[in-house]
């Protein structure tokens, strides 16, 4: 059976490529060739009630299980005098808190936000690295799709699916607003976006400072722009992570398709670092959004 490794990102594009290679390879054997493509979306594996379980969701579940096991193991061996795992976790946490301090400005605030921010970091990191393990993306089943035998892997990096990254980004942005409302109060927080205060104080302060009639409507308008900014936050967070991880998987597959041995190894290390950096970037951006929204805007 002939196998074609096509690493195109688009379905349409992929079809034309696989057909082109089909002509050359299957003309000799006469067999239907196997389409091995990297799709932009996660493929469904099975149905679980109303939920269509995709391969990336499956990987995410594995990641959650790993975190659950490590979490329980950590809790079980937690001592006042640290050993092994606790030492490593404490050391890593200390470094993270130092980075967080630079953003929040106080250790107390860093410790308060650390569980939330670190949850993003850990989940994304495990998901990113799971996608790099040999077997993820290369062990799967062959199904008939549009008249082609299509290879569908059982597992796919959890963050190589926009559903995952979009869910995480939405949680981050929504939670940052909740934190904001809790920290500065609903009325103050609302005025960050729909600046009723700025409009309302025009008649009061007009005599003292006439320029207020120009400045405060601008302030109100800036508030409206902030709303668009919130949507942009979700988009940038989710697409940055998805794009980096998906591109990494495509890159590795391409390298493996060109020369199967030795050559992909440096790229593997590169992707390990990319996975770490993307998780870190996501977490730090979440921290920045949360700490911006929890501080009252100063004028």
């Amino acid at each position, binding site marked *: 059976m002939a196998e074609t490794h096509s690493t195109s990102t688009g379905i349409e594009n992929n079809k034309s490529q696989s057909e082109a290679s089909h002509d050359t390879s299957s003309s000799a054997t006469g067999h239907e060739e196997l389409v091995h493509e990297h799709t*932009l*979306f*996660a493929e469904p594996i099975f149905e679980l009630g*109303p*939920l*269509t379980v*995709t391969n990336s*969701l499956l990987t*995410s*579940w594995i*990641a*959650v299980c790993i*975190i*659950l096991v490590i*979490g*329980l193991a*950590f*809790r079980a061996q*937690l*001592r*006042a005098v*640290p050993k092994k795992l*606790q030492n490593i*976790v*404490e050391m890593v*946490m200390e470094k993270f808190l130092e980075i967080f301090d630079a953003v929040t400005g106080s250790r107390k605030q860093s*410790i308060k936000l*650390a*569980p*939330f921010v*670190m*949850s*993003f970091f*850990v*989940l994304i990191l495990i998901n990113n690295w799971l996608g790099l393990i040999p077997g993820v993306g290369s062990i799967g089943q062959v199904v008939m799709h549009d008249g082609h035998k299509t290879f569908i892997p059982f597992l796919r990096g959890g963050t190589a*699916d*926009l*559903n*995952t990254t*979009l*869910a*995480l980004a*939405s*949680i981050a942005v929504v939670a940052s607003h909740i934190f904001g409302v809790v920290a500065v109060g609903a009325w103050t927080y609302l005025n960050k976006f729909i600046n009723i205060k700025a409009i309302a104080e025009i008649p009061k302060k007009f005599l003292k400072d006439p320029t207020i009639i120009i400045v405060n409507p601008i302030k109100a308008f800036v508030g409206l722009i902030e709303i668009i900014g919130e949507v942009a936050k979700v988009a940038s967070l989710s697409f940055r992570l998805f794009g980096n991880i998906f591109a990494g998987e495509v890159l590795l597959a391409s390298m493996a398709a060109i020369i199967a041995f030795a050559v992909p190894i440096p790229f593997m290390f590169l992707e390990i670092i990319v996975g770490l950096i993307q998780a870190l970037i996501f977490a730090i951006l979440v921290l920045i959004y949360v700490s911006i929204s929890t501080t009252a805007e100063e004028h």
Partner: protein
Amino acid sequence: MDSLISTFHLDGKLLIAQMVNFAIVFLVLYFFVFKPLFKVTGDRSLTIEKSLKEAKEIEARLEKTKAEQKEMIKQAKMDAAVVLEEANRQAEERKLELVAKAKEEIGDLINREKAKIQADKSEALREIRAEVAEMIKLSWEKIMHEKMDKTTDEKILSKVIKQME
């Protein structure tokens, strides 16, 4: 928007499933890792702080005790010197006293002996005198062959004795 959903196969149920995943991860990390970890590290910091403070206190106390010890030794040495001085002085006094007493006793003894000798001497003299008088009397009687009367006798005797002295 529709093309976005179809290209990336966005699915509300999948989004919710991933959010649930995150919620599980958050709860696990919060309750099993961060909450206990921060408590343990916080407690440890407090313990270390306390220990350091106590160590400092102990050191200060030790320093104080050492100083006190030194002071006590110095005081004891001074006291010992005073006592020694006193003892020396008393010994000296006692010695002088004893010497004086001994001298006195010796003086007494000598005086007593002197007196005794004196007494013995006068006794002996008296006896000698009596003896001599007796002898003279006898000799006189023998020479005179007769006895004079008592008064004359006595008179002559005492005259003789007076001359002999």
